[in-house]
Each structure stands twice: as C-alpha cells, then as structure tokens.
C-alpha cells in the first residue's frame, strides 16, 4: 500500500513551487488582475513552465513529452492553484489529452510536440451556453451533414483569445457527440470576450459559423467516450487547482490569525475560529486525498474511476469555496479590500467551482451511479 506521492513527484512539485514563487509572486499576479484588457498570459510564466516540463507531463515521449500520468499533472495544477497563477496551462494540457486519447497518429504528430513545448496554446470548448457538462442538454455546437463544418456557441471557454488550437465537443448530423479540432483563424470562428471577476483567468465564448473542423478519430477513444474522458480529466485537474487554492488560503489565514490580536489575545486562540479552521483543515485534507485517488484511478483505468472523479470534484469545489470564504472572514475587514490578496483566492475558487461540473452536478452523478 502506497497512497502518497513518490519522491520524484514531490521533487517535481517543489521545482514548480520554487519557480513560481521566485518568478511569479503575488505582485505579478496583481499586475495581471489589474490589467483586464491584457491577455492574462504572461510569457515569463509560460516559458518557465514549458522549461520545467509542466506542459509536457502527459504527452507521450514519442511526441516530445514526458509520458507521465495525471498523478504527476495534478502536482502542477495544485502548485498553480496555490500561486493563483494566471495562464492557459489547464486548457493546453486538456487539449493535448484529447489528442492523446482520441487523435490519430497523424493528428498527434501535427499538434502534440507544439503543445508540449508551449509553442501552441490549446483550449477546450466542451459546453454549450447554459448547457450541462455531460452534454445531456445544450451541447451548443453541431456538425453539418458533411461532417466537416461546425456551427454554434461554446461557453465559457478559458483563454480563447490566445489559443492556437481549439478542441470542440460537437454533435454530428446523426446526433452523435465527438471531439473536433478547430484552428485559430479558421473561417467563421470568432471569440467574444466575456470578462470574469476572476482576474487570474481570461474567458470568452467561442462562436462558430460554418467553420471547418476535423474530427478526432483513430485513437483509443471516440465519440461520447472521448468527450467524457476529457471532461473527467478537466474535472480532476480543476479539482487539483482548487485544492491548491484551498490549502494556500487556509495556511495564510492560520498564519495571520496566530498573530492578529483582538480582545488582548490572538484571534486564533478563540474556539469559534479554531473549530472552523479545524473543520476546514479536515475538509481540505480529504479533498487532497480525493484528488490523488481520482488521478490514480484515471491513470490505471480503475473501474471505480467514475465515482472517484465525481467525489474529487464535489469535495474540492466545496472545500475551496469554504476555505477561501473563511480567508476573507478571518482576515476581517482587511480581507475584504482590493489591496489584500484574499479576493484572488476567493474569486478563483468561486469561478472554477462549477467548471467541468459543479459540486451539485457531481453529487447527482454519484446518485445516478449508486442509487439508480
């Protein structure tokens, strides 16, 4: 029994953590937050991540990647969450996963090396506006009878403005779902900036009008299975990001409340605060366990992976929202100011909690798996 990260994985985490702390601290995050017209994609961070191999983690070695698993990838996601780091890391990794799982050898060779090196930014457009993540309602994008032209709207999509490659979930003329590649600049493709209160990301709607797209086909997975697999990986990597956000928010709050004095005593000595912090610590720890297990379950094709992914995303979403909300509360008035960093954490948690399925949606998934 070894339920833990290996020394290599821990060292990888430390490398990413040290790099981000050294080269992209909270002042750098603030600069991105306070420049909403900017692309939110700082090159110093991106190139550094590429140098660390953080974009190549899941890409097979034959396509210039590291050929590692989601367990390794979630290490990066957690560190980026803890640093509230901006940039299209998650979506680029997911686009590469779509290619790895569903693409033909030619499609993989065409895109994976560039994605692994950070030369191309990838993003995924899996959900129709106001639709569900599992595609049961409102897929948003349809394919015409030729099978090569896509129309419709996907939203929200992370970092569409800087993406060179879009992996789009669409429904074909027979009603079958599938993943399609759409290149930036393709005919009929437009991106509408949507703006979000989470200044550590850039989000938009992707609108397609008779836009050329290429079905991902010839890989291990196809159709709805491929869409489901990419969505599940998105859920786990988002859960990992949220767990990183939650842990960092809790640590900063504990550090502050150890020293901050009111009524002649450190506020952290009051049980009203202690007990909440203890519950948050248990909750965040459980979420960390759940993310590890879900990543491992997907890496090993565990038959219980469906349950594991839903548990991880539900738990991490709730834990992150709770921990970052408590951060504002337990810093008191200063935590509610623009100058303080608490809102970076809170807004990132709050925006990401519903991505790839909210806690409620994943609980409903669990009900479907164990009650129906």
């Amino acid at each position, binding site marked *: *029994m*070894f*339920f*833990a*990260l290996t020394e290599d994985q821990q060292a990888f985490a430390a490398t990413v953590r040290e790099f981000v702390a050294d080269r992209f601290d909270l002042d750098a995050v603030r600069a991105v937050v306070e420049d909403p017209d900017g692309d939110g994609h700082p090159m110093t961070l991106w190139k550094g991540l590429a140098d660390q191999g953080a974009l190549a983690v899941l890409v097979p070695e034959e396509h210039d990647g590291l050929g590692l698993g989601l*367990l390794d990838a979630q290490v990066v996601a957690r560190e980026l969450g803890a640093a509230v780091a901006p940039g299209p890391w998650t979506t680029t990794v997911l686009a590469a996963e779509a290619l790895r799982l569903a693409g033909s050898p030619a499609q993989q060779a065409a895109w994976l090396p560039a994605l692994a090196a950070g030369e191309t930014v990838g993003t995924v457009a899996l959900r129709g506006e106001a639709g569900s993540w599992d595609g049961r309602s409102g897929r948003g994008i349809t394919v015409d009878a030729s099978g090569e032209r896509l129309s419709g709207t996907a939203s929200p999509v992370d970092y569409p403005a800087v993406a060179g490659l879009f992996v789009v979930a669409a429904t074909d003329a027979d009603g079958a779902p599938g993943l399609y590649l759409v290149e930036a600049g393709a005919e009929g493709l437009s991106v509408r900036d949507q703006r979000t209160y989470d200044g550590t990301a850039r989000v938009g709607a992707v609108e397609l009008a008779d836009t050329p797209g290429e079905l991902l086909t010839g890989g291990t997975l196809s159709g709805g299975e491929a869409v489901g697999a990419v969505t599940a990986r998105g859920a786990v990597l988002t859960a990992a990001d949220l767990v990183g956000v939650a842990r960092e928010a809790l640590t900063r709050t*504990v550090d502050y*409340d*150890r020293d901050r004095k009111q009524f002649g*005593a*450190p506020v*952290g*000595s009051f*049980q009203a*605060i*202690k*007990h909440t*912090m*203890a*519950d948050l*610590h*248990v909750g965040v*720890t*459980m*979420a960390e*366990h*759940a993310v*590890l*297990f879900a990543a*491992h379950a997907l890496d090993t094709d565990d038959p219980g992976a469906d*349950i*594991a992914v839903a*548990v991880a995303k*539900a*738990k991490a979403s709730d834990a992150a929202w709770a921990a970052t909300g408590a951060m504002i509360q337990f810093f008191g008035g200063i935590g509610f100011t623009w100058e303080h960093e608490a809102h970076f954490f809170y807004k990132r948690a709050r925006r990401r909690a519903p991505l790839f399925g909210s806690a*409620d949606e994943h*609980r*409903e*998934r*669990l*009900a479907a798996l*164990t*009650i*129906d």
Partner: protein
Amino acid sequence: MDLTYTAEEEQFRAELRDWLAGSIPPEWAEPGFWRSLDDDESFRLRREWEAAKTAAGFSGIQWPTEYGGRGGTPGMKAIYDEETVRAHAPQTVNVLGLTFLAPTVMAIGTPEQKSEIIGPMLRNEVIWCQGFSEPGAGSDLAAVSTRGVRDGDDFVVNGQKIWTTNAMHGDKIFTLVRTEPGSERHKGLSMMLIDMHQPGVEARPLKQMSGASEFGEVFFTDARVPVKDCLGEIGQGWRTAMLLLSFERGASGVGQYTEFRRQYDEIVEQMRRFGRSDDPVARQKMANCLVELECLRYHAMHILTQVEQGRDLGAESSMTKLQWSETFQDLWEAFDDVLGPEASLERPRPDVDLTPYQAQAMWSRSVTIWGGSSQVQRNIVAERVLGLPR
C-alpha cells in the same frame, strides 16, 4: 501510488475469508439479528465465536508471535478489518483490552503482567473494561477523583467510573486512580488493573437513549488492589494513559468504511422501497454522504501508508476520528431526511421492520462524544496540527 496489497497479504485474505465463510451462520447477516438476542446471550455467542477465531489463528493479527499473535503486517490488519465486516462478523467482546491495554502492557508491563494479561485476553478468558471517565471527568480526563490509599501491599480504592463499555461483562478494569493525596490534574495518578470480581466493586448498567446498555457504571467501595497491579510507575498514571490512548491510531478506517458503505446501500434500498429515490434533494443528501465516505476510505489508505512507513501519526488521529464520526452521524441523519415520516416508524408496513436502522440512528449520536468529543478533537487539530495558540 500503489494501492495493492502484497501477495502474502492477499494470501492471508484468502485464508481468512475461507475461515469466516465456514464460521459465520447466515442469520448473523440479518439486520436485526444481534438485537433480537438477550444481552447475555449475545455476549456469550460472540465470546465463543471469538475464542474459535483465536484458536484458528485469526486474532492479534499484528501482535508479535511471542504473545500469541500472528506477527502480521499493518496491511493484514487492514484486510482483517475489511473482511470481518464484509462477512458480518460480530464485533470483538474485548475491544478496549485488545486495542489499548495489550499494546501498552507489551510496551511497559512487567514480565509477570505480560504473561498474566495478554494470553488470557487474546483467548477471551478475561474481559477487560476501561475506567477513565468519571461523573466529574468526561472530556476533562485529568479531573479524576477516584482515590487509592496505600495499605500495606495493597491500595484501597474508592470512587466511581462511568460510560464503561461492557461493564456488566467485565472481569477486570484498567483504571486511572489518584494515589497521591492532594495532587491535582495530571500529577499523582496511577494506572491500576483491578479485579472486578470482589466485594468492593459493583457494576451497574446504564440504559442509553437507544434503549440498549452497552455502557455501565463501576463503583469502588474499599476495593483492594495489590500494588503490583499498577501498570507503569506509581504516580505516573497520566503518562501510562497517554501511551495507552496513542494506540487508538490503529483505528481502522478501512473496516469503518466497509461497514458504513454497506449502511449507505441499505438506506438506498429503503429509499427505493418508499419511492424516494427520484427526489433530487434526497439524492443530494445521500450523495454528499457518499463523498465523505469515499474520503474516509482514501484517508484510511493514507493512514495505512503512514503506519507502514513507520511514521508517528500523532494528532492526525484526531482528523480520522472527526471524519469517521461526523460522517457516520450525517449518514444516519440522512436516513430520516430521505425517508421522511416513515423513518420514525418501527413498522411502516407489515413487512418492513426499521428498528435495526433506528438503533443505528440513535447510536450515531454517541460517536461524536466518546473517545474524545468532536469539540475536543477540533481543539487538538487546531492547536497541534495547525499550531493555533491555546
């Protein structure tokens, strides 16, 4: 990550599963079986079964062979916990002795104590109770007022213990006694091993809110305890108590998960029966219980890893206690939430007996109190894990 057990451990699982299949009658798996028996009868049956288990080599899984144990690995203990729950094996009758006293005796007992205590306990010839709590010393254990006065080679003990598991079936009790007159708090205490079959010791059952009597009270009136029956040094009882309680970290998340997950499925079965399985609010409640249950399972694997690596868990066991006890209680509150008014009826339909479920629901109120209340556990997590000031 490697979530598998070794080949040797899996071999152990196969042997244990085999033995359990042949030794547990099918009716033991029925939800109301143990409650249908008279308390003495239930205890006798469990005691006999457990003696047979010991004879078959399936007790003291992780204990050294010199003490009659199997000399197994932490993984085997986890497998044992999982398989006994799966097979509907009854709970051990000597739980406090096996969990707490035995490892403490192995660590600091005299040679005589080791030979006199451990073997008979493992064979269930002697049932051990734990005497820590008192009417004035609950969460505040150091407020012990039961006192022992030296009289020749004996201590003469007077006082009262409460919430004593198996008080009515106990043969001996390990108990904290204040042996230095005028001492306060953690000082001047001794850990005594007291024979309950003597005129100065009286046990009385406590009827719980569930109607059952798992706990009792133990009264000492000039009870006599030979000085040699102190465990650890005289006057150092607090140290012995802390060592003793540290063995709770073996607490089996794997076994608990297996048990609670089955209870989840049983509640789901009742949801379907009463047409509540499509209710979106009920589904959310149950699914949230499942989230916490699965987290308990992952946490158990994490803890097992720590144990196998020889790490000291320390205050982390408080997190384990919070996670399992709060989750268990929430699960049985969800039972009422999802069934509605039917949940409170013993026989909502002629063919449906809900009393075993209601017994669990009532029992679930106790688990966040005993063994360190949730409030005490939160203080421990906040102070010793997070480092918040006292």
